[in-house]
């Protein structure tokens, strides 16, 4: 029981951290969130440009400069807290490979982010502090809504973070070395899911 408690405690900390930052993004107007989604979508898959954005935002935050989001009908001036939250998520997205970033864009188009988020969340909830590799059964309903192509896309997205999902079974292979990459994927999925929901 104690082990289970620890696992939940570890993941809960991440979840709360991500929720805190997501709440700052939620405070943006609908137009602001839509504009942010549009900006990020164009940068995903271009790691260098995403890193440049990260540096620019960080510099602006450090020096107290204004950050404006270009939007119609009117540009949106971002609060310091909103810039901090965006910086947090851009940091997570730059942790992902370019291939994963492109898969995220594709997943947005296919509207399967909620399923992917649930898959990553569920896996981490169960294994967050587990130090050993192992194969674990996957709740069949987690993937049941996905078609073949969407399933392949999802397998590739989480697989590139080191979470190997096999349809037969279904089951997944847990490797504790992959935890930081999965945490970054979880944060990235959480942001994009919020932004697509708001848009």
């Amino acid at each position, binding site marked *: 029981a104690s082990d289970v408690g620890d696992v939940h405690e570890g993941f809960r*900390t*991440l979840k709360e*951290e991500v929720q805190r930052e997501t709440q700052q993004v939620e405070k943006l107007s609908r137009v602001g969130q839509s*504009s*942010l989604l*549009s*900006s990020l979508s*164009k940068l995903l898959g271009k790691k260098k440009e995403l890193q440049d*954005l*990260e*540096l*620019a*935002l*960080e*510099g*602006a935050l*450090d*020096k*107290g*400069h*204004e*950050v*404006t*989001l*270009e*939007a119609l009908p009117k*540009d949106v001036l971002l609060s310091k807290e909103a810039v*901090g939250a965006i*910086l*947090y998520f851009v*940091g*997570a997205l*730059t*942790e992902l*490979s*370019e*291939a994963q970033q*492109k*898969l995220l864009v*594709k997943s947005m188009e296919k509207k399967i982010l909620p399923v992917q988020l649930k898959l990553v969340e569920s896996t981490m909830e169960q294994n967050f502090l587990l*130090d050993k590799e192992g194969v674990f059964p996957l709740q069949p309903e987690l993937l049941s809504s996905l078609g073949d*192509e969407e399933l*392949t*896309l999802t*397998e*590739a997205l989480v*697989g*590139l973070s080191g979470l*190997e999902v096999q349809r037969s079974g279904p089951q997944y292979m847990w*490797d*504790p*070395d992959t*935890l*930081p*990459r999965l*945490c*970054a994927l979880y*944060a990235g999925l959480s942001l994009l899911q919020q932004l697509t929901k708001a848009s």
Partner: protein
Amino acid sequence: MTMFENVTRALARQLNPRGDLTPLDSLIDFKRFHPFCLVLRKRKSTLFWGARYVRTDYTLLDVLEPGSSPSDPTDTGNFGFKNMLDTRVEGDVDVPKTVKVKGTAGLSQNSTLEVQTLSVAPKALETVQERKLAADHPFLKEMQDQGENLYVVMEVVETVQEVTLERAGKAEACFSLPFFAPLGLQGSINHKEAVTIPKGCVLAFRVRQLMVKGKDEWDIPHICNDNMQTFPPGEKSGEEKVILIQ
């Protein structure tokens, strides 16, 4: 994720699970992460995927007034490898200075990664601290103007021998599907990779923040937090805007 990143991350996790040992991202930068090198930290800190450190072209010794340099700036310390490594480790675990790691992600069956730690010796730091900061050094001025924080590499894990890493197999089977061709993914992951890591290559490192006090006094405190600034607060440069362009 490159093979090099895979290996350094796995190694950092083995040696220091959930600790402050930062894996190096890029093989090409390893010479800029030796002890005493100055680096910049990017990214809002989080426990979960760590900070990103960016190289600079300077070491702490470069930005100090001339003076005595420690003859041997580093020592290997007595690092408790044995308790920190899991069953995948074999070899000289009883020798505190070096350790061999087999079977880590990215290593082929026959590869062995032999690493050692180097850390700035307390006495070496004391010697260096007798020297004042070269307050007019252009690099320091630039960093101060930019409001950057500087960090000093204090400990590294480096390779003892050259090693070649190979990766093949799983990634090819999973992701070389025609479906991904339009995304340009096939080329990036559908091939075997091999990379040779030279002897003395830094794989992971620990930093401490450099704190400048007054004009030319400095310190490297043991504890730092996100609110600490390397340079004392001064006047901000002119107004600038960052615009997220669609």
